[in-house]
């Protein structure tokens, strides 16, 4: 599942009039996980802070970061390795954060539901730490970054197959946010 697909999914309701987004949402539905099952993660995911008109995000806004940069990366099953596609997203995040140095970030680590609760808390933390470490290697100062793990407790996609699990194994970079 690509980053763009999930971004489209989580933003469908606000951006549904944008034909590009509609096309992406359609491709997601064909990929096997009914789009109606996917609900936005939180206000940030909805881009409520960006005030973009018809999907055109204000540069430097949360919406700009979420849509144009990509706020999340995905992991393979039980893995914390930064995949090549994820590295590209994180490179863009690092560039954006260098351009807008006033933002602090929290990296939220998540796991899919196919694991036990306590282990998944640690696995999510490990994913957040790997993400933070990668961003640090691309020049984001450590003191601008916090991490938090939600384990398997906050899925964004709900179904019983890999199309959903692969979206839930993620690290989400939240501007501001709360972590340790």
């Amino acid at each position, binding site marked *: 599942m690509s980053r763009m697909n999930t971004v489209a999914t989580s933003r469908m309701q606000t951006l549904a009039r944008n034909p590009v987004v509609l096309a992406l949402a359609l491709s997601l539905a064909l990929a096997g996980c009914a789009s109606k099952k996917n609900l936005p993660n939180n206000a940030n995911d909805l881009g409520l802070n960006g005030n973009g008109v018809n999907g055109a995000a204000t540069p430097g806004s949360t919406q700009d970061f979420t849509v144009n940069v990509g706020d999340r990366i995905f992991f393979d099953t039980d893995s*914390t390795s930064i995949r090549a596609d994820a590295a590209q997203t994180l490179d863009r995040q690092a560039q954006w954060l260098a351009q807008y140095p006033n933002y602090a970030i929290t990296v939220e680590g998540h796991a899919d539901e196919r694991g*036990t609760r*306590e282990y998944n*808390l*640690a696995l999510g933390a*490990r994913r957040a730490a790997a993400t933070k470490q990668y961003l640090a290697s691309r020049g984001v100062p450590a003191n601008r970054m916090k991490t938090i*793990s939600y384990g398997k407790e906050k899925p964004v996609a709900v179904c*019983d197959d890999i199309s959903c699990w692969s979206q839930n194994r993620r690290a989400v970079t939240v501007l501001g946010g709360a972590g*340790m």
Partner: protein
Amino acid sequence: MMKCSMIRLLVLLAGMLAGFAAPAGAVVEININKGNVEPLPIAVTDFVSGNDLGAQVSAVIAADLKRSGLFAPISKTAFIEKIGNPDQAPRFEDWKVINAQALVTGRVTQEGDGRLRAEFRLWDTFAGKQLTGQQFYTQPENWRRVAHIIADAIYKQITGEQGYFDTRVVFVSESGPKTARKRQLAIMDQDGFNVRMLTNSNDIVLTPRFSPNRQEITYMSFEGNQPRVYLLQLETGQREVVGNFPGMTFSPRFSPDGQRVIMSLQQDGNANIYTMDLRSRTTTRLTSTAAIDTSPSYSPDGSQIVFESDRGGRQQLYVMGADGSGQRRISFGDGSYSTPVWSPRGDLIAFTKQSGGKFSIGVMKADGSGERILTTGFHNEGPTWAPNGRVLMFFRQNAGAGGPQMYSIDLTGYNEQVVKSPAFASDPAWSPLLE
């Protein structure tokens, strides 16, 4: 300091009822080590009382015994003799003819001081003898507890093992859609009655576990977006953070003496196991690996700790001394193992096993041998032991949009039952026997 006001709350006066001495060698008994036993037919008569309470007490007793899988309460419609005076010996022939091998009679009365007096006798109908008889005094609102205590006494008399009916369960009550679940800590009697919510916020709360004195629980909360281990006093509702750690703390459990909390501390990508002494507030680090070490659980004598670690690549079970010494892997089956819990008897360790896309609950001996799977399915997780080490509870999530439910299962793998709860429920933790 720990308070024991629950004990005061239930003023319990137990004594053997005079007149019918329990015989040395009871004829009616269940050998529960044989595996799948034939449940013992038992007649639980309505306790004599001036109101509905007598029938309610006997219904709770019969339900406890039935749920254990070891007893088959006989329908009251089959009863021939109506017990009018529980101080007199019953007409054994009337009970033998309906094949009631054991018979329970009793009485509930209101004392002049407002207290409830409950007394019962357990009879061996084929031997024509009383096996035991006891009486209890309590506050009227505790009538269900008295019924559970009587059920425990019957269970113990006939099986030779401690009962587990006068116990409670803490768990995570879950409501709302999966993507926006509300989770609350909750407590209830083991039969699903007297549910009480312990928290009510939108913070995620997970993995509650009882202290050995049953008066407090330790759990994990995301309060203030700081995922940490807490203590909660059940009587007062007072809460406190356990320790001042520089990262997420999770997966807490009490030591058997209640003096320490053992838990995991997350630092960067690794989780290691620490204890905090609740009196001195000193912390001790027990594991030190570049891995995820979590789900620690003490042996009942406090000398050893079982935990899970992925230091070898996948989650496996390890045992170490209480000081962290001698860490060794004990699980070697096909799959990954997690959430180990040491049996209160000390002989077995229960676990979650993931293999072939399925999640199972199983047990193995403390040295890792003798693995037995009790139940397998889409997702079973997080076993907890009844205080007698005979029954396990866990939670199950079926495929689909619904939520988790709690189940109990006998150590033999038989008698799987839904544990009723008002909403979706996960992370059950069984209390020790109440006092």
